[in-house]
């Protein structure tokens, strides 16, 4: 059965490694914070100027001066720090953040990503996404395998305006976990009960299936 958004987040959380600083985008990526594996210390960076982001505040203690990049009220954990936007993107551009998780509208088999603009529609802006994808070595995309019209979001090349080029390293969708390398999507895992055929059908780009593909463990 295909994963729901929460399960996608759960699967991505398995990618977290001890002592990593992680930037989570808005949407599914935000949910990753709820599934940090036991024994793993990670710290979350919010690009509006916060390191060591904690859970939402207890009702009644929310502070208008403490929000995350999604403008949600949050808390700061022990050992956290506050800083300005230039310092925040110094961390990001300078590759001090070990993992970036973000959503996408399209990913191409060469690692290009499009997630900020649909021509003819209102454009809200790229926010920090272009800085994140241009800088990070380790970028996981969290998204549905297909769009609302059932079309694949894993393409030979992106049709939408790009956010970044050749940067995505891994994709976790409702159907599969895939590595992006050598101009192809390498299938690593299937969602429980999802067939290879289903994944092939939903993947427009070059899909490589080598050996047995295990089911994800959640």
């Amino acid at each position, binding site marked *: 059965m295909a994963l729901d958004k929460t399960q996608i987040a759960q699967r991505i959380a398995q990618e977290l490694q001890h002592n990593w600083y992680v930037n989570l985008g808005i949407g599914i990526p935000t949910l990753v914070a709820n599934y940090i594996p036991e024994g793993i210390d990670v710290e979350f960076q919010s690009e509006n100027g916060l390191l060591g982001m904690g859970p*939402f505040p*207890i009702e009644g203690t929310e502070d208008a001066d403490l929000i995350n990049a999604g*403008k949600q009220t949050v808390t700061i954990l022990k050992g956290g720090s506050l800083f300005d936007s230039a310092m925040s993107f110094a961390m990001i551009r300078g590759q001090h953040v070990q993992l970036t998780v973000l959503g996408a509208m399209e990913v191409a088999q060469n690692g290009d990503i499009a997630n900020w603009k649909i021509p003819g529609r209102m454009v809200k802006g790229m926010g920090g996404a272009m800085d994140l994808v241009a800088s990070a070595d380790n970028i996981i995309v969290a998204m549905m395998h297909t769009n609302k019209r059932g079309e694949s979001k894993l393409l030979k090349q992106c049709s939408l305006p790009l956010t970044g080029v050749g940067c995505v390293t891994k994709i976790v969708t409702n159907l599969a976990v895939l590595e992006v390398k050598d101009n192809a999507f390498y299938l690593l895992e299937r969602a429980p009960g999802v067939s290879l055929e289903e994944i092939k059908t939903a993947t427009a780009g070059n899909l490589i299936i080598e050996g047995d593909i295990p089911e994800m463990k959640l």
Partner: protein
Amino acid sequence: MINKVVKNVEDALKGVASGMEFMLGGFGLCGIPENCISELVRLGVKDLTCISNNAGVDDFGLGLLLQKRQIKKMISSYVGENDEFERQMLSGELEVDLIPQGTLAERCRATGAGIPAFYTPAGFGTEVAEGKETREFNGKMYVLEKAFNPAFAFVKAWKGDTAGNLIFKGTARNFNPMMAMAGKITVVEVEELVEAGTLDPNQIHIPGIFVQRIFEGKNYEKRIEQRTVTIKS
């Protein structure tokens, strides 16, 4: 000690005129110069270019200036959450220059720091890099980005002293420090104005040298855009 205090927001905004380019601090509605924005609305100056990470919401922040059609051009990284903005942009009344958030922050810092241009990886290979110089350093491609030249910067700080030294609070810091460095005239409104010598000189976020005018603001609303809470179990 050089004194930067002005009596009120009216004095703080002297010299502001239609057609000018401004920087305005804040991220979403967090850390925005509420008093300065109100005064800009009252003054009715028009054809403004506003450099600000976001554009407020319909009835608060820069949304108030949009409502009155005082803004000609926005330079921002993200402008969602604002219907009036969308209407003006789609109708062509409003010019919009969208730039990556880190590039925006660094361009603000560069402006204040006398760096006319720098290279950043953000936006390479995208439409953001169109018409800009690109260049390889150590096997990676970068885009040349330039400083701004704003007439005024409007900044919100938490505490400030009479010498113009500033301390910000929480994530209300965001773009405010770099914009404070960047204004030809930097106007700062603070929640609490104290005597010079009160703040620990080791803990000042922005030294007074960057600030031309400072005043204690009034009636802060500090609206929350996304009130998210944990319900006590």
